[in-house]
């Protein structure tokens, strides 16, 4: 971790003067007109990963509740097996299916833009992070459940009541960890934004607009003239990606701590 941070810092050093910095921290990416602003990509990454999390988190919580007492045992086990299977699908496969199915569907249904959009990438990313969140919550529930099972049964609680009143309130740390991991995956994924989001370096006006994530930006620009500021801007993007995922990580760990102590 530290080595990566040092490496990124070392390569970002040439950027550490007011002139280059002001060029990078701008809202226009037009490398051939000498504008190297990476802020649209920063915004793109954050918008994409937060919106994907917003979509995936409630669904994941629902799946987990279904599997832990709200639903019948047979379908619940089947659902969990399916989610576990989802973890093994490479992200490029989601991207590929997205290009052939999701993007044309978006274009036909919403009749706005080309289909390569924030919405398409958001759905792709939500599907990608879903199993991560579900499995994290699942393992937390698995720890809490045995602790309260005897008491709950003695009190005459149904499995659903036990889940809602005892398991969920005692799994705060699990929720936090699931969010962190989900966010990290969504922020760090490259193939899905690259293949589905359209990659226009702009701040989207709506979810049907094309958007470019920092990861996709790095993938697109990395082969460019290595003596240019465009190339150097990649290290700034890398640094921002690294720092933001670390910050969110630390922040949520800090949030999750009191709950962890209670246990």
């Amino acid at each position: 971790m530290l080595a990566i941070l040092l490496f990124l810092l070392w390569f970002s050093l040439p950027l550490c003067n007011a002139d280059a910095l002001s060029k990078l921290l701008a809202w226009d990416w037009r490398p051939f007109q000498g504008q190297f602003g990476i802020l649209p990509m920063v915004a793109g990454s954050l918008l994409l990963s937060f919106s994907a999390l917003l979509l995936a988190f409630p669904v994941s919580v629902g799946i987990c509740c279904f599997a832990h007492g709200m639903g019948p045992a047979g379908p619940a086990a089947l659902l969990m097996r399916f989610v576990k299977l989802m973890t093994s699908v490479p992200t490029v496969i989601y991207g590929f299916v997205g290009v052939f199915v999701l993007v044309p569907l978006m274009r036909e249904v919403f009749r706005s833009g080309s289909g390569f959009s924030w919405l398409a990438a958001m759905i792709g990313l939500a599907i990608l992070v879903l199993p991560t969140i579900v499995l994290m919550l699942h393992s937390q529930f698995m720890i809490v459940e045995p602790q309260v099972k005897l008491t709950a049964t003695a009190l005459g609680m149904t499995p659903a009541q036990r889940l809602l009143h005892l398991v969920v309130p005692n799994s705060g740390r699990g929720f936090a960890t699931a969010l962190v991991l989900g966010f990290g995956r969504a922020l760090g994924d490259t193939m899905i934004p690259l293949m589905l989001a359209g990659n226009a370096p702009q701040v989207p006006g709506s979810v049907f607009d094309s958007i470019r994530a920092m990861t996709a930006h790095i993938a697109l620009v990395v082969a460019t003239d290595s003596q240019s500021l465009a190339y150097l801007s990649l290290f700034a993007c890398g640094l921002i990606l690294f720092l933001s995922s670390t910050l969110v990580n630390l922040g949520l760990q800090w949030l999750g701590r009191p709950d962890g102590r209670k246990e």
Partner: protein
Amino acid sequence: MKRMFFPFCLALIGLAFCCQAAFAGDLDAFAGKEGTISIAGGTAHIPVMKDAAKAIMTANPAIRITIAGGGSGVGIQKVGEGLVNIGNSGRKASDAEVSKYGLVMFPFAVDGVATVVHADNPVQGLTGDQVRAIFAGEVSNWKEVGGNDGAINVYARDESSGTRDVFWKKLLKKGTVVTSANVVPSNGAMKLAVSKDPNAIGYVSIGHLDGSVKAPALDGVVVNQEAAKSGQYPVVRKLYMNTKGQPEGIVKSFVEYITGPDCVEYIKSAGYIPF
């Protein structure tokens, strides 16, 4: 039938001899030598490199040639850092790159870049001004240029693309490209995106043109390699091999072989025009 067969065989044998004689000329340079040549970079170059490598390695098994892709930018970086002997690029190396790495460029073929639209798009031709206006975002509906009523979806290539470089310089005259344009990372991805989107406009290397997309005529000139060769179609680029300093030994022989008469057929069959 039998009487036909004998002259046919003779002709075939004669042809085989001719070919051998022709090949012997340039491949002689490799006779008795050994070593490896590593090549990386532009994906457009690969078919030509592969054919040449096959011929050389068949004639002299002591020589090993490895070919990798990566794109024009990667080719220049790799050869500049000394990781490969030859770095291919579909664009001229920039002055900064040439002076930093001491690159020597060897152009060997010419490739055209075509504007493409969806196969069902009724637009048969566009003028250069129309293409520029579309990419700049000034024209945003197909009916303004004689097509159906539908918002135009512009597709562009990434900054490191050699295809983008020539399209932007030769056809867009370094004009602006609307920022809402979708960006795709390769010729293949461009073809896929445009072939699926009825309102798309984009651009691909002429070597990649097939039935899945349509190339409308530009200023009345039908877009194909013949028009590019005759100079009628102006949006063309050169394909380069780059070496760090003047090449020596078998690398020099390889560069001479590619630019020599034997490779003309390989270049043509890959869909390019020999330089």
